[in-house]
């Protein structure tokens, strides 16, 4: 799944994004780029807009009636909020993993085959292959290969989250969005997923929202610091954590304010 793209061009270009919930402005004039094969981390205190912002990338905030987005969101040079843009297609290329693992109450196999089946793939051999590949990429195959038909609800929390990641991978997306994927998990499960993310970076572009700064420091290449709906600073992770330019960034990452 290698990205044979011009590595200099970003996969997402966002310009002057404003987002309103009714009268309340949740995102204020944010512009940024997301690059291929990088892990970009969004950090910031609660309520600063990072979860809202990441949902702009796959138009999941369409589900909220009162939500209005303005500005340019270019995915591969096409504006995602264009009237003619195929949202379903977008979501199969830009996948999402949520904070609380949400496997469907079906078998492990059916969970992973769900996406491909929705796209019309029926051939059992093809589906078997997709399921195995996805589970292997998500470092879950060894643990569940002998019980694919068992219910997904019988897995532990960490396994369920990896299942959700496998489910997303089965769609062969370009970008995987993760909204605080480890905040509901214990430290060992968290570590497994962090290791997974670092591996997945080779094949996918990953954007991760996290309130755990050490996590952002450990796994991301670029870090963006959000505060009250604004993008305060975005730079290489090592620059942010060694010598941030903005005073508020420094105060946040050193824990002087939350």
């Amino acid at each position, binding site marked *: 799944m290698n990205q044979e793209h011009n590595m200099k061009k970003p996969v997402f270009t966002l310009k002057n994004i404003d987002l309103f919930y009714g009268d309340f402005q949740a995102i204020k004039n944010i512009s940024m780029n997301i690059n291929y094969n990088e892990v970009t981390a969004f950090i910031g205190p609660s309520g600063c807009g990072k979860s809202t912002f990441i949902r702009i990338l*796959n138009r999941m905030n369409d589900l909220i009636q009162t939500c209005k987005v303005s500005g340019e969101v270019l995915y591969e040079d096409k504006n995602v909020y264009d009237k003619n843009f195929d949202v379903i297609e977008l*979501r199969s290329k830009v*996948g999402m993993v949520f904070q609380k693992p*949400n496997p469907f109450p079906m078998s492990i196999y059916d969970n992973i085959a769900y996406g491909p089946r*929705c796209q019309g793939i029926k051939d059992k051999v093809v589906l078997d292959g997709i399921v195995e590949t996805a589970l292997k990429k998500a470092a879950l195959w060894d643990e569940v290969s002998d019980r694919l038909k068992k219910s997904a*609800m019988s897995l532990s929390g960490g396994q369920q989250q990896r299942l959700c990641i496998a489910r997303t991978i089965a*769609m062969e997306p370009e970008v995987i969005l993760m909204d605080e994927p480890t905040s509901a998990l214990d430290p060992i499960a968290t570590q497994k997923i962090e290791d997974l993310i670092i591996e997945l970076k080779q094949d996918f572009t990953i954007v991760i929202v996290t309130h755990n700064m050490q996590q952002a420091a450990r796994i991301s290449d670029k870090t963006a610091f959000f505060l009250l709906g604004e993008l305060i600073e975005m730079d290489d992770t090592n620059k942010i954590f060694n010598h941030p330019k903005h005073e508020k960034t420094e105060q946040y990452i050193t824990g002087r304010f939350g």
Partner: protein
Amino acid sequence: MKNNRKLRDNVSKTLVYSLGSVGLIILGMIIFYVVSTGLNLVRWETIIGDSRTISTDVYLDEGVGSYILIETIDENIVYSEIWGIGLVDSTNKAGYPIVEIAYIHPESKLIQPFDRNVVDEEGNHPQVDLKVGTAIEKALFNNNTIIALAREQASGMIAKLNQATSITSMSVQIVGGGIRGSIIATLYTIVFTLILAIPIGVSTAIYFNEIATYSWFSRAIKNMVDMLTGVPSIVYGMLGAAIFVPLLNNTIQTQGGSILSGALTMVVILLPTIIKSTEEALKIIPNELRQGSLALGANQTQTIFKVVLPNATPGILTGVLLGIGRIMGESAALIFAVGAAISDRVILSERATTLAVHIWVIMGGDSPNFELAAAIAIIILSVVFVINLIIKIIAKRLQKNMNWS
């Protein structure tokens, strides 16, 4: 101070216990009365028997044969090997002695003799089913040359029968009191109601809960549906009589009420319930599942039919089962919309009674048949009880499946 408190505590406890027991006692007495009255009649014959008591004359031109008994029968039965029928002395409800059929040989032609008094369109006489319990008043054999009367008792009749080569006319009273027709009518009503109510109800609930969630219109509809669940069903019965009956009369040429008009009326009665149960079942499905599906690139239809609906099925089923219970118990509405004519041969476009209406029919009038009514009540109660049991089991399975933690 302490004693005062203790006293009050004891008094209120006693009050509660006694009131509670009163309730339980009354309930127990009702059930006991029903069961004791009707248990007798809860027999196979009742369930598959005709309702009407038929009095007619039958004839058989040929039927003589050799019908050897292959099983032992009661000593009181007088058996004719020539015709394969066994008679016994008995008394009818008024206390007069009668002769009853006690046994018919499986190969005997007397199982289905011809009806003398009825001729159908082609000039043929239809056959009548004789069965055990049929009373014989008198019989004329061999072109009226041999006469047998009930007061000659079973032995006398059999003796005369054995001399006969043909039965010219036998006056019989085939006891009815069966409820087969009503059971079939109830089943038809249930099936047709559900065929219409489930798709309409589930689709409506899906539309308002999944698709058009936020418009003022859908909120108005939801409120209306809530109100409609409380409307007394007799109002719907009026509706049925006023709208569906004439409608069906004009379109498919029914005469007055029919099972179809009853089913349509029940659809209207059940829709709010089914919509409500479906809605509740859809609501408890966590939004994260829908989001997860959409995030994988599924469209809304796929999300609804592959993720939401399968998981809502237990809840929908509960609503359906409640609906079935309601159909079985519905009386007034169906009396208006269908009519109250008990039928033994149930046709969709004609009148028939459901079990509850059947109770109403046999309890009304000069001689209420408590026994049969109680028997039907037992049947209805058992079905409702079983339905409730099934609902509870489904609810438990629901809990296990939906345990997200």
